[in-house]
């Protein structure tokens, strides 16, 4: 075939510094958002499955000491960790005879741990929303810049041939495409993760009361 070099990557070689800068930012955004997506997908999946298994075990076994002993196997499960925090507080009560105060302390410890767990699960997730919202606009900036340049070159050359106009427009479209490529997975992942984190949060709310009740029963 003929040896002419025309294509996406040779097009990139001719782009201006502004468009290259925009592309570099978008690439960085994409790398970071995929880092978060990969990390969070693993953490949330593990947290959900271990929580589910722990709950099965918790309702099977009535003894809190036995359940605590088993929590070692569910270290990544959010609900198991909350139970552990409650159990540690319950043990710290020692010989406290005031059941009401003991219940309050255990409930507080469980709430604190549940909050901690929610915070930990949703750490970095807002960045996905940021990428999803801003990347198309950054790409659009590159687009506007490229089209501005192509119109300028039409003005300079006083020629409206495709050879004059097309490279600038192609540059512009590359920036838009890169912006969308970074934004689309981020938005999908953000929605998916927030939905799953909300589900875990609801579970924590629901079962916190159950745990407190089980510890109070042990106190009596």
């Amino acid at each position: 075939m003929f040896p002419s070099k025309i294509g996406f990557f040779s097009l990139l070689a001719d782009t201006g510094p502004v468009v290259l800068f925009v592309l570099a930012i978008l690439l960085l955004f994409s790398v970071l958002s995929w880092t978060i997506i990969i990390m969070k997908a693993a953490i949330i999946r593990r947290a959900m499955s271990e929580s589910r298994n722990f709950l099965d075990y918790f309702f099977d076994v009535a003894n809190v000491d036995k359940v605590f002993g088993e929590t070692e196997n569910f270290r990544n499960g959010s609900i198991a960790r909350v139970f552990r925090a409650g159990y540690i507080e319950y043990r710290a009560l020692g010989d406290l005879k005031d059941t009401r105060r003991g219940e309050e302390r255990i409930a507080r410890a469980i709430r604190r741990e549940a909050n901690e767990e929610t915070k930990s699960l949703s750490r970095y997730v807002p960045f996905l929303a940021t990428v999803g919202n801003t990347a198309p606009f950054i790409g659009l900036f590159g687009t506007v810049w490229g089209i501005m340049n192509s119109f300028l070159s039409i003005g300079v050359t006083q020629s409206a041939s495709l050879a004059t106009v097309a490279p600038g427009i192609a540059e512009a479209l590359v920036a838009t495409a890169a912006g969308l490529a970074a934004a689309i997975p981020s938005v999908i992942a953000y929605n998916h993760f927030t939905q799953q984190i909300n589900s875990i949060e609801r579970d924590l709310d629901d079962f916190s009361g159950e745990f407190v009740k089980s510890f109070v029963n042990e106190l009596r």
Partner: protein
Amino acid sequence: MNKRDERKKQNRRLLTAFAASVLLHALVVAGSVYLQYVMGLKRPWLKTIDVTLVTLSPSNVEISAGPSPAPEGLPEPLPEPVPEPQVPDKPDVPVEPEKRETAKKIPEKTLEQPKERKKSPVEERLQELQQKVEQEQPSEFERTLARLQQKVQKGPPSGRVDRGEGAHGAPMSPYKKRYLAQIAMIIQQRWSFTPRLIREKGRIETYVALTIQPGGVVSDITFHEKSASEYFNDTVLKAIERASPLPPVPEEVGGSVLRIGLVFTPQGIK
């Protein structure tokens, strides 16, 4: 201690995920490079983007090409050392200035013809030949041919040989000259570039050698010398690609594979 361990574990997870993400992006880039360059998906639109909103008319290029002197000491692609053997073409040479005036002066000529015929039989013969040539060929082709013939007449030094023809130094037949001129004209018509887009300073000249198969298909395009402007080189290459297939190599030229050279300058093909 427990918290610190957990944080370490989280950092390790983060690093692993980052490495996986970088790897993923590298794979995507490598995959698209592979698709573009190896699988031949790089230019699916090459033949379809054949549209220019403003084209350079060949006649404009022709006019500007006229006064530019042929570079001395550089290998010419078309010319061969032809001092004499142009017996059938000799009458064309003095006729050329008239040809350049094209159709505008045709009525005048027809008026003058009877007077001239009375003057001398040589002139009469000349005009006959001129008329024949005009009937046979379209005007643009004629101009290109005339320019090429003029160059051949000016002549490269006798020791020089056609780089496309090899070193035998044989005189170029009129058929071959005509064919080469036709090719040059076709490529010139397909050539679209804007001189103002050339940012590089200095001499812009590209020497290209190409092989024409008997059927006219162009193959084996090589740059013997590239100009400083990549844009210029690219437009030259695209012009040759667009011109393929060229008219089949005539039987008079040999009818076989033909290797020729062309010099492209912003003023036109030399």
